[in-house]
């Protein structure tokens, strides 16, 4: 039989199935998976941006396609990459997290203070920071699910609370980290900075969570349609809470990393980096739907790299920092507009 023939009542759909009936192979599946992946256009875009940047910079007499330059771009992507990976999870659940920036600052401070200059304390410091992440994540998740507070307001509120706690306790860089831990921020294995491996590890972990665990599958389900998921027996609240825990933990890890880079904790490292809105921008730039349920961490990293390439190019061309923001704004809007049109076409 051919179920694919669009029946009149059925109207749309079936359109993309081959006209002549034939068995589908695993290859069809793979092909399908690729065309369906929202990450595909992102990397197309990344490639485009990369090539343009290359040409422009070279014309300008700069060096773009050198190992050290590429490595520098990777280095710059680490912090934003890790937060955004977490933010992706929150957004996939149909939520979002505006509190990451302050959590990052707080984490950097906690790291530096607990570590207090000696590598002996690395383990307690890391544990403390991860615990902090879990707590904040639980807080956000519970406020959103149990108190039914819109995620935007909930996390905005948490952000304020965190900011208060930070500024109440710290009036400048505090604590210091051990020599050994500083290596995370500065040493390189060969040419690759250690921190890049951290980024890879986190992304891999999140990717694994989304792709291979039940949590991941349910996350997409809940983000896609909370009611249908509920009817299918998904414990939607748990999923949303878990999503926020993951998001906050990623932010905490970013704090760890930045502490190692700054050699201390600072109350402003998170907000100076604008990681709250930047990470959301990176996620949507990475093709993840702000409404949730569609997208993935690979796309997000693509988005982060796009921003990194832009940054690097602008640095090379010594483009004014403010003009840079203009271009970023335009690119973000344009990208999302394109994705919107694209998903309209396919729906």
């Amino acid at each position, binding site marked *: 039989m*051919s179920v*694919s*023939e669009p029946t009149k*009542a059925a109207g749309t759909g079936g359109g993309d199935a081959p006209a002549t009936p034939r068995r589908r192979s695993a290859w069809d599946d793979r092909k399908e998976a690729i065309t369906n992946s929202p990450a595909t256009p992102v990397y197309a875009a990344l490639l485009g941006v990369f090539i343009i940047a290359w040409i422009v910079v070279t014309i300008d007499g700069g060096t773009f396609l050198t190992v050290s330059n590429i490595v520098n771009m990777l280095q710059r992507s680490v912090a934003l990459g890790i937060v955004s990976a977490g933010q992706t999870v929150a957004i996939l659940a149909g939520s979002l997290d505006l509190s990451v920036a302050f959590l990052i600052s707080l984490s950097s401070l906690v790291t530096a203070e607990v570590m207090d200059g000696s590598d002996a304390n690395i383990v307690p410091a890391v544990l403390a920071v991860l615990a902090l992440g879990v707590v904040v994540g639980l807080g956000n998740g519970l406020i959103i699910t149990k108190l039914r507070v819109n995620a935007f307001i909930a996390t905005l509120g948490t952000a304020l609370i965190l900011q208060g706690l930070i500024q109440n306790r710290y009036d400048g860089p505090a604590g210091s980290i051990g020599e050994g831990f500083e290596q995370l921020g500065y040493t390189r294995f060969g040419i690759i900075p250690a921190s890049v491996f951290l980024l890879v590890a986190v992304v891999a972990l999140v990717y694994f969570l989304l792709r291979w665990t*039940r949590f991941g599958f349910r996350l997409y*389900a809940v983000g896609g349609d909370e009611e249908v998921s509920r009817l299918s027996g998904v414990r939607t609240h748990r999923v949303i809470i878990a999503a926020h825990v993951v998001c906050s933990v990623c932010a905490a890890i970013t704090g760890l990393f930045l502490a190692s880079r700054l050699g201390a904790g600072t109350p402003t490292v998170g907000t100076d980096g604008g990681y709250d809105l930047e990470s959301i921008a990176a996620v949507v730039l990475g093709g993840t739907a702000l409404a949730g349920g*569609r997208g993935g961490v690979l796309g997000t990293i693509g988005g982060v790299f796009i921003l990194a390439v832009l940054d690097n190019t602008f640095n090379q061309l010594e483009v004014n920092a403010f003009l840079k923001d203009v271009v970023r704004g335009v690119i973000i809007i344009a990208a999302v507009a394109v994705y919107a049109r694209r998903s309209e076409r396919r729906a």
Partner: protein
Amino acid sequence: MAPLLAMKDIRKSFLGVEVLHGVSLECEAGEIHAVMGENGAGKSTLMKVLAGVYSPDGGTIELEGEQVSFSHPVQAQGAGVAIIFQEFNLLPDRTVAENVFVNREPTKRGLVDIRSMEQHTRELLEEVGVTHFGPRTLVRHLSTAQQQIVEIVKALSLDAKLLVLDEPTAALAEHEVEVLFALLRRLRERGLGMVYISHRLREIFTICDKITVLKDGELVGTVPTEGTDTNTLISMMVGRELDGYFPPRGTAEELGDVRLRATGIETSMLTGVDIEVRAGEIVGLAGLQGSGRTELARALFGADPISAGTIEVDGKKRGRGPRAGIGSGMGFITEDRKLEGLTLAQPIRDNVLLAVRSLGRSQRKRLPNTVSVQELARSVELKARSLEQEARFLSGGNQQKVVLAKWLATQPGVLIFDEPTRGVDVGAKAGIHDLMRGLARDGVAILMISSEMPELIGLADRILVMRNGELAGELPAGAAETEIMKLAAAEDHELEAA
């Protein structure tokens, strides 16, 4: 031994309206048990009670002698009861496999075992003979029919003891139905019990062993398929004086000139539909779920674009979009008032005034300044504390009246009703029917989509029947339900034969 399923005088009411007045149903293992009845008879509700979507207000449910009560569909699944809802229940952005196994993802060493998930899904798909989409196809890329199959596969994957199918063939073409039946027979061999809800008589006779008929939430009776014929069945379903009173029909001289004329309407779901409605007449539009009535209505009103054809109101070709429709004097009472009819958080007043307020200055010219919101409310016999009450606090019937008042405020010349009395209790129904006839008397041309046979037969001056997005034929006022059913459910080859 105890039957697989035994439901004993189940009661259920919504917002005070009781829709199941003690219904009982038994189904043996290895049997396909049909449940029939007009729209609103209570079939779906009964099944939702069984599946744990609604909890019954009274009565008991037994599975293999064990008394059970489900507060969540998942519990029902656990107990081996799988249900395919009338409304689709899938995640459009997930793959087929993910939809089939949502919340039951198979795991190996704690990790989701996608291979086996997809493998299992592929096997199931092949079992039901699907070759054109695979486990990784996104559901959003599937046609309604294909989504239907996914639903069934999902239920199969639960290897349930009892499978409930609520109008599974509504959106399926004949050959697809055959595939489905082959599948159901195979399942019956396996000893599965199945409850099968459908409006299509012929299907019932082809595949079902027993038939239970519901009417207005009451059990009419259960009969074996052998020795029962179409007419007995229909009389069981319809066999009562049609809802008692309907307002007297319009007379020939009350008929005015054509106010709505559509020719050769084409959309993704409609093919070459011609239709004419005259001032003073109520034209009924019959058809099965998914036959395209709503699509036609939306196309006529301008809610959906048409790829071909022309629509004239009072002889003037109308522009595109709802605004133009309203401007030219059309109104559209939608099928789903909560989603498309009302702004639930707003007061009655604002709901009633919404359409008028959106009219352009020029368009408002034709409105006499006499009507006040109260008068409108009174004319539709709206029962509400005050006009400032939010629409969401009104009962279904009164909400429908608010929607009606909204359109009356625009003094329409053509009104399209899609399921005007769905979810409206019997009392309110009569009121709405009177109102519609009254409007017709005042020279309004009315097109009424309804799945409720009594309504169509009792109210319409003539009945158009739709099938698969085409007009299947026209019947005079008061045509017998059987004729309508035949036209609506007739399969293509039967037509060729005829």
